[in-house]
């Protein structure tokens, strides 16, 4: 089948998609967006998290056909408008929250979604929001630091803008 949707604001189209293929497979193997990662393909690790119509989902659990005419935003679409890093991306780099980095794309999308909803989350809020994203390397401390840093910068940014 053919599937058409928008990925990071651009229309994309994938041909010859087998009906069992996941959105993750289509993104990674067919439309050249390998940023979302394949760590379990069972909805357990969160490495494949993308926005689907603005809601974070595990793309490994979404059948390709389900995204017809919908909007997908991946880690590749989290960058700043100037082509630089987005706020959450920069915070993860600065806090040392990236080691092997395999969990990072999913965590970035989930963190972005959290901060969209709640710009000053408590530590418990952060842990709850990120509890579906496994990281095997960092021990999560630096991830907590990164989210707090992103939150602080976001709020400071807002304060400046206001």
């Amino acid at each position: 089948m053919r599937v058409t949707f928008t990925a990071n604001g651009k229309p994309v189209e994938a041909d010859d998609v087998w009906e069992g293929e996941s959105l993750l497979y289509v993104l990674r193997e067919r439309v050249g967006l390998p940023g979302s990662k394949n760590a379990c393909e069972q909805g357990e690790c969160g490495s494949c998290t993308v926005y689907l119509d603005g809601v974070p989902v595990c793309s490994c659990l979404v059948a390709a056909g389900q995204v017809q005419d919908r909007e997908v935003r991946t880690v590749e679409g989290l960058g700043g408008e100037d082509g630089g890093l987005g706020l959450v991306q920069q915070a993860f780099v600065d806090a040392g929250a990236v080691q092997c980095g395999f969990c990072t794309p999913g965590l970035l999308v989930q963190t972005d979604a959290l901060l969209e909803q709640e710009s000053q989350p408590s530590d418990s809020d952060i842990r709850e929001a990120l509890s579906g994203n496994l990281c095997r390397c960092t021990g999560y401390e630096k991830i907590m630091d990164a989210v707090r840093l992103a939150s602080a910068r976001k709020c400071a940014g807002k304060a400046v803008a206001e």
Partner: protein
Amino acid sequence: MSTKSSTKPSTEPDVSGATPDARSGARTAARTIQGQKNLQDIRQASKDGIGGSPLRPDGTLKVRGEFAYSSDLWHEDMLWGMALRSPHPRANILSVDVSEALAVPGVYAVLTHEDIPGAKYYGLEIADQPALAIDRIRYHGEAIALVAADHPETARRAVKKIRVEYEVLTPIVTEEQCLDPATHGYVHEPHEYKSHAHGNICHEQRLVSGLGVTDEVRALADVVVSGTYEVGMQDQAFLGPESGLAVPAEDGGIDLYIATQWLHVDRQQIAPVLGLPEEKVRLTLAGVGGAFGGREDLSMQIHACLLAQRTDKPVKIVYARDESFFGHVHRHPARMFYEHGATRDGRLVYADARIVLDGGAYASASPAVVGNAASLGHGPYVIPNVRMHAIALYSNNPSCGAMRGFGAVQAAFGYETQMDRLAAELGMDPVELRQLNAVKQGDLMPTGQEIDAPAPVADLLQRVKDMPLPPPLDLDDLDVRQLPGALSNTSHGEGIVRGVGYSVGIKNVGFSEGFDDYSTARVRLEVIGGEPVALVHTAMAEVGQGGVTVHAQIARTELGVEQVTIHPADTGIGSAGSTSASRQTYMTGGAVKLAAEAVRHALIEKGRRRYGWTWNDITLTGGKVVSAAAGPLVSMVDLLGDDAIDLTREHHHRPTVPFDKETGQGFGHVQYTFCANRAVVDVDVELGLVKVVELTAVQDVGKALNPLSVVGQIQGGCTQALGLAVMEEIIVRDGKVRNASFTDYLIPTILDTPPIPVEILELPDPNAPYGLRGVGEAPTVSATPSIVAAIRNATGLALRRIPVRPEHLTTERPGAL
């Protein structure tokens, strides 16, 4: 059905700024491979040298989703490889029929062991593992046949059409069965390719020091405690699945782009199976999503190469998560008996231990794991009389090998539990008892080896004890998400008891027992764009630990330059050894230091010849050649001109010797490292749920080359230890793996993981580059027992098996520890 992507961008070739190596014609073919791009932006890295915390050179690509992990590799025209795996742990293979699988449209090849052109067996220490099963199955999940197809789904369907007839046999899985081959049989028949083994024992090591453990020695002790302890099978559970891409080259060789821990030893094992000389098998490191020991053995490497060789097309293999659980070795499960004797005032008199490690079907790194368990199994304590016996068994359970902490983890659970029990028996504070017996610099290990570098064990314990405790649970102002059971809202504070526990551990750094452990580095200095630029080329596997950051820091420090380019790791240079045993900063960092120093000397020498300098105090700093007495002499740009200085050096650590087989004596280890922990836990004693509230670590790192990464390593190590303490175990029943998924094999989430305050000490080791000490493993060794001790402290239960499960907490009776 087509797998070709019309929109996938092809990426540039090597843009790392590296000088192209003399490589085969495969270079062109591999141009679309993204791995080369992974280090491109190192030139924007911070200026920091050692001791600073510049950011990762690959961090920007990783947060953009542009870093190419091995599972992201793509090649025009590539095929997907997949293996058929055995559903039985022990069986004879009566027949394999691949004809139906071959007939599936889109299938290019189906291979069995009969199609292997070269050697059929390989292995890290003993070549006992068939690349594809031959006549027999020795563990659940063993690979029998391979398929290459145009789509992963095609491959999956074809695999299902391979017909195998088995004669299913009763697996040999318990210690008793393994040790009685006359009744239960052999995992490997006695005449088969084994060097160290007899019966189903893969390797054993004894150790006796002082008077050993005799009735006379026992009589010297006022108090004796003994117990049997068990450690379950833990998995590395790195997130990036095993994967790679094998590309056939024009010269008949193979180029393999791979996530591994040790490029050269992969190659040593792969080439004979392919029937190729080593120089025709070229490996380049692709992005690695964590390793923790699980990538020290081969997984899909040979399989991808065999399929590429046969089809003459690039072949990619990516394991699904269940295949990853079957495809790599795990941490050895252990059964241990420990007995300690002490005087009334708390001095240890003797330690007696038998440590039985289940090595599973193939040897992997079992011999070295046994060596560690025997030589570190008494812990960081001075004990005048010691007797240890460690063995690894061959069984029909999954193979076990390297995992962070490597033989020291299991033992630490045993000896630290014993320390707590001894303290209870003596009515002493458990930390004081440990401090009283702690090793220090100048003491002898039971192997007879003197500890000739700082060993601040008592101080580490004191510091961890002195760290402020988290506030007590406040039931009036409670966020229930912080309680055991967390989001499930299982309690509002009732039934919750808090406990505190302490532990300390010891781990060796680097490869031991006479292994000629070395690493190679090439450093090139030249002027690019009007600036001096250093290039660092090693074969070090960057698995997330941050070696690439540290190499750039070392080059900046030694050469006084800002710009450093890291060449992709490949087999175009000598071995870097493995990214394991906490050794890479020590070994490859040491090699980069040596090579950079040699380049510095060569440049200064050039200046002496040209300008006749006579000062002896010349260094390179800020892009200039500077004399302390006379000030700046010349800019490096002017002195270098169009020349490049390009030098390669090897770093060997001081030699070690194998332990004596019977007495365990010998200078077997290069360096020791220590970490102390304190755990605070809340336990819901009614439901058996545990929440670790805080896990504190204090570690001596010798010299923190990059404090940010060092702390990150310690926190990550503590978290894996937490996993082993309370949740992580591969459940194997009758040789069958029951939980090969992230649904059923649980690793700590951010909700399970508490704040991990870390304090680092920097007491330089006079024998190590910059005085540094390997960091990554010590916390994984030490932290588990502190958590179990805290749960015991809360519940009064003995808890002699890890991971501690809810049913242990709700069904065990409180009693003497």
